[in-house]
Structures are given as C-alpha cells and as structure tokens.
C-alpha cells in the first residue's frame, strides 16, 4: 500500500519552510544565516507556486518559479557583496554588533 503524497503535503512543507525562514530572519544573529533564511522564504514561495500549479494542471506556477529563481540569484549576488563589505568594515558579521547609528 503506497501512500500518495498529496498537494497539501507540499503546501504544509512550504508553510513550514516559510515560517522557519521568517523566524530565522527575526531571531538569528549571524548575517549569513539571516541571508540563508531569506532564501528559504523565497523557496517556500516557489514550492507553493509549484504545488498549486501541479494541483491545477496549469503552467503559470511553473513559469513563476523560474522568474523567482532568477530574481533570487540576482538578490543573492548583491546581498553577499553587501555582507562582504560589512565584514571588511567591521571584521564581524554579527548583527548585534552592527549598530553604529543611535536613535
């Protein structure tokens, strides 16, 4: 007896990934981990698009995923460059130490 994996399994997985990413952005202190959490959120959105596209049998969601992957790559390029410049300026990528501007 083989249990099939239904659309809702994919959706729950995507929602879990998204929440994981969201809480990671809010509570993690390492800039690179925060960065990875954002990628996780984008990919959760991707997975949601794909799961719905498969369930509905149309290709709009598949198409969207390609665009999102391309945009995420562009974002990663600029984001990593900024993380490197933070590291060069301070020698750390700990978010708690990146607080030079006071209120």
């Amino acid at each position, binding site marked *: 007896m083989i249990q099939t994996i239904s659309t809702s399994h994919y*959706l729950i997985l*995507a929602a879990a990934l*998204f929440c994981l*990413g*969201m809480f990671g*952005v809010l509570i993690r202190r390492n*800039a690179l981990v*925060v*960065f990875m959490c*954002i990628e996780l*959120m*984008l990919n*959760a*959105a*991707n997975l*949601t*698009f794909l*799961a*719905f596209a498969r*369930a*509905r049998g*149309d290709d*709009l*969601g598949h*198409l*969207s995923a390609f*665009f*999102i992957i391309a*945009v995420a790559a*562009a*974002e990663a390029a*600029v*984001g990593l*460059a*900024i*993380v490197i*410049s*933070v590291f*060069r*300026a*301070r020698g750390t990528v700990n978010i708690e130490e*990146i607080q*030079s*501007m006071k*209120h």
Partner: protein
Amino acid sequence: MIVTPVFTLNDFLPVMPAAVLVVAAIVLMLSEVFLVSATRTYQAMLATLATVVAGGVAVHNAFEPARAALQGYAVLDPFSSWMTAMVCLGTGLAVLLSSGFLKHRNAERGEFYALMLFAAAGMSLLALSAEFITLFINLEVMSIATYALTAFLRRGPRPSEAGFKYFILGAFSAALLLYGAALLYGATGATKLIEVSAALPAAFIASPGLVYAGLGLVLAGFAFKVAAVPFHMWTPDVYEGAPTPVTALMSAGVKAAAFIALVRTSLFLVKGIPPEMPFYLFSGMALLTMIGGNLLALPQRNVKRMLAYSSIAHAGYLLLGVAALFAPQGAATTTDVGVFSATPLMGLVPNVSSGVYKGILFYLLGYTVTSLGAFGTISALERREDETRGNTWDLERFAGLAQRRPGWALAMAAFMLSLGGVPPTVGFLGKLFLFSAAVDAGLLGLAAVGILSSVVGVYFYLRVVVYMFMRPAPADATTPVRHWTTELALITSAVAVVGLGIVPGPITEWFGRLGMIFGH
C-alpha cells in the same frame, strides 16, 4: 495549441520611459569601460538628459486613455504615467545632487548613475505592473539597485551597515509579498490582478483562510516598502547611513512607487472580502503612521534622521488618502470634491475617488520636490571630516547658514515650510487636497488627527529654520563649497515648491481627471 501573442507598438508605450532609462544606464556602464577620462561630468548630464526624455514620454502617456497593455501584464493609465513622470523628476534632481556630492568624495563613477537609472526604471515599471510576478520582479529591480546604491560609498562602517539593514528587510518584505502572491494564486488560479480580482469572491467562500493569509502577506510586504508604522523600523538607520542623494531618491521615488503599486493592488484585491476590513486596516495604519512618525521625529537633533522620521509621517498622510478610497460608501458624498475641484469630464460628477487620486498624486509630487530639496541642502552642507565623528547632520551645522549661504538658507526654509504644510508652498496644497478628499469621504476624525499631528510636525521643521536664521554660526563653521549641479537642483526644487504652491496651474486639473486607474 500554442497561441503566438500579437503585440503592437501601442503595447510598448507604457514601458517606453523605462526603456529610455535602461538604455541610458547601459550606455553609462559602457562608458566606464571604454571611455576612461578624468572628468565624469558628462555622465551626470547624460543621466539627467535620460530622465528628462523619459519624463517627457511619461507626460505624453499620461494623456492616453487608460487601458491594459502587454496582454494584461501591464497597464497604461494616467496614474502610473504621472507617477513615472514624478520618478523621472526626482531621479533627475538626485543625479544632479550626486554629481557634486560624489566629486567631493572622489567617488564619481558611471555605475552610480546607472544604478540610479535602473532604480528609476524599476519604479516606473512597478507603478504599471498588473500581475504578481511582474510586480515582484519590478519591485526587485528597484530594490536591488537601491541596495547597491545605499552601500555604494565604502568609507566608514555606516554605508555598508545601512545597505545591509535595507537589504535584509527589503528582501524579507519581498519574500512576504511573494508568498502572499503564491497563496492567492492557489486560491484563484491566476496571477494577473484583474483575473485574481474576478475570482476572489468565489475563492473567498471556498477557502477564506487562504485568501486572508495571502492578502495579509501581500499588504505586509507593501507596508514594509512604504514604511508604515508597525513596519518602519528600518527607515531611520537606512536613511541616515545611505549617501544623502540616495536617501533623497529613496524617500521620494521608492516610497512613491511602492505607494502606487499598493493602491493598485489593494483596489483589485478587496473584491469579495467584507468592505469595512480594508478600510479599518488602512485607517489604523494611517493613524499609527501619522502619529508615530511625527512623535519619533520630535526629539531628533540629527536633521537627516529627523527627515527620515518625517518621511514616515508623510507616508501616514498618504495612507489616510488610501483609507479614504475604501471608506464605506454610505458616508461618502457625491458632491464637489475639494476647493480646487476638477472640471467634470463628459458630464460626469467627480466622485470621491477621483478627489483622492488627485490628492495622492499632488501630495507625491509635492513631497518629491520638497524632500529632494531638503536632502539636497543637507548633502551640500556635509563635511567629509565630520563623517567619522557622527555629528555630520547635527542641527548645529545649520546654525547661521543665513549669513554663510543666504540662498541655501532661504531654499531650505521653503522646503521645511513645505514639509510642515505651511502656505504658500506645495506641501500646504498637497495636504489641503488630501485632507479635503478624506473629509469628503467622511473620515472627519482621521483628518483631524492628521491635521493635529502635522501641527506637531511644524515644531521640528521650524526648529531648523530658527537655527539657520537666528543662531550665530559656530566658530569652526566654514562656508560650504558650491557646486553648480547641486545649486541647479536646489533652485529647481525651490522654484517648484514655491511656484506650485502659489500657482498649481493645470496640474490639479490633470490629476483630477476621471479614469486615473485602469479598471476603476
């Protein structure tokens, strides 16, 4: 069966301004590779020229009737075209400000102007996107260029810190928006706003949870971009750390473009859900943002940071306009809107929403020229030797400016009065249009809060004027260096602030026409 889409030249009309900007940006990047020369003033001139041409095309587009373009992925309507024209104006002024600013820091490069033009193209395209993936891509085109601009100066820890904070929260908000779009796609099976809107009432009955989650995430994503109050934490640090001309571009362009996209998206997405929900949501956000922005700006001695909080407050006034769009229809009157009402076209009585659109557009125009001018004056006063000490933008820097540079002091006074909403400036007229539209929609209480909080705002704007005109210059004060492009930008914005404040001319009539937004 594969249907080949047929495009006519008309389809490409809405994207023409962005195309002009992108081509100019590519030329600027190539100029860095091929034409290495000591002077780079021509780059600023080329970038300004591109914004002028793109702005001209956008103004031409603004008189075209509203219609869908590119198979419904984009729209051509006066709302987005006027927005593009304002973005071009703001970008042109920011480029002029940057030229002197960067030269002073030995950082003038073609890439900087190219990034500014790419950001402007993203803003223009964001304003006319009518489909979720298009919206997301253009939001990212705008944002990625702005992240890079924020971290462009690599002197000291501040720019990279500001760039990093902006990047994290910007990418976070984009991801929220995207996940919301994915959920709405699941609920409705469409990503074009007009199709989502048509399918929403049925989807709302079938799976209300999915629709609410999707709508909430999309709106939260936009709320981050416009810096509405629960989502505003990034603004002060990013605005303070970014190079000042970039801050000017962010406060005017990025925010305005996100606002236009927010208005368009929410107009389409409220179909089917109880009508009072978006109203309470936007009114609540407007209330918090108006009060929060003004109160947080009160204790600031750092003028750049004060203007960052003030930009939050101004987003609050604009949200008041958005709330007026969703006001329950019972309270709305169909009589004349505002004091400077639009002439009815085709025998139709102007309704509340056309007054609101006029208010929003005029306010955005006023805020664009005012904030460009205000940040421009700040950028002209900055001294490199203060950068490490962190008191570059202290109020003391403005003390006695009236003796050192009377022209600049007068211009800055005009910008401050305009931000505070004091006549005869464009800021006053903008507030008048926006608040009277809100009153016409029945939002008396919110409008009263808006007026009261802007009275609070007058205090910290006038404090700058008092320092400029009534305090003696400190002993170590130097006369700031002049640069002709900076002064050109300051003169343009000052003339616009006062001129539009006294004679708004046909602009109010253009902004108040019917059919501003496609489909509404």
